[in-house]
């Protein structure tokens, strides 16, 4: 079953990670896992760290480890703004593990209901998601 294609752009602060036509985009918003097909209703959403999958054809899937970001869909075009989009192969599991542990230590030290706590929690979620991708890949 071939799907209709639509254009997708993945932008990071360091430049464009992907631009082209795909059949489906699979990622995770703050509310949960989401799959975007052609002619999706207009949407603006916040993205959470996860594995981003771009189905360029039935058999071809591009994978990225994606940090927090935003997703904008409309006019048969999807734009993903993410802080980072790296190939799963270039992730370093040991480094991520170390960062996760550091985040946990900092979390113990951070006072309740401070901005610092919120920051560290976000760091931890990200390290966790990336670590999962690194271990799965």
């Amino acid at each position, binding site marked *: 079953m071939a799907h209709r294609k639509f254009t997708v752009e993945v932008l990071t602060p*360091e430049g464009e990670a992907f631009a082209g036509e795909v059949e489906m985009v699979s990622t995770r918003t703050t509310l949960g896992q989401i799959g975007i097909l052609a002619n999706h209703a*207009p949407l*603006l*959403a916040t993205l959470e760290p996860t594995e981003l999958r771009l189905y360029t054809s039935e058999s071809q899937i591009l994978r990225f480890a994606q940090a927090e970001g*935003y997703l*904008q869909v409309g006019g048969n075009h999807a734009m993903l703004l993410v*802080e980072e989009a790296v190939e799963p192969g270039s992730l370093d599991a040991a480094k991520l593990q170390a960062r996760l542990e550091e985040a946990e230590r900092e979390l113990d030290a951070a006072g309740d209901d401070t*901005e610092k706590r919120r920051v560290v929690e976000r760091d931890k979620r990200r390290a966790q998601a990336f670590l999962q991708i690194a271990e799965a890949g």
Partner: protein
Amino acid sequence: MASQRDVRNRISAVKNIQTITRAMEMVAAARLRRAEQRIEALRPYADAIRRMTSQAAEAAAAGVPKLPILSEHAQVARVGLLLVAGDRGLAGAFNSQIVRAGVAAGRQHEAQGAAPVYFASGRRPAASLSFRGVELAASFTGFTDRPAYADARRIAERLMAAYVDDEVDRVEILYNGYVSPISQVVRRETLLPLQQASLLADAGDGAGGEQPAGTGGEQATGGRPRTRRATPDYEPSPEEILRRLVPDYVVISVFRALLESTASEHGARMTAMRNATDNAGTLIEDLTLQMNRARQAAITQEIMEVVAGAEGIG
């Protein structure tokens, strides 16, 4: 007068230095090009964030929510100063002019009754400030050759936490703005509180001195398909999305400053090393002249001795 051998040794030493400075100049030139490309690469992302913010703000019933980083503190007793410079020297006035401007800004705040709280990005400004006996609230080092977005986020989040948790009542950033490979200007911008006006301004130029940091300097890129027709769905609510988008402005501002500072650093180093190479060239010319003179003097001396000897015999 120095002997021929002394002068020759000095010439070869200066030649070695010239080789090194020329190599450093070329390395800096290559890195400068990469740094320029990275400034360019940030632009589409920053523009897209801005468009998204406008869209979410239109949809939000109450406009942009009153976030802590947007609201001014009633009393300004402590001002955070973030000095952005490099990890390494040999770049002319690149590092020292930031430290000088930072200390001057601190004095200015003291005169107005607010205590400066210093933050530093780069080993050089951190070391200079410690040397002057200034205590640093935090320093961030090890990435000024090639700053990543994550570095900017770390710095921005530390500053926002300091602002929200009442450690400081205002935050200013000082960095070398990149104008061209041979020209850098010290920029001083207010980072926090974030100016609400800068969030929604679609175009605008931040090239001037005391602009709010959020206004960047970019224009909306045309050509992209406009993706607004029917009323979109929001996941979560527009207000929640804005709660995430607004702090990103601070991160982007810091990232832009880091990138510009890096480009400026490579530009400044390139110029400094080119001057050093030129100076070495001049020095070699002078020394060669001196060596020739010494050689000629020695020859003349020898001839006079031979002539005197011949006369003595004859």
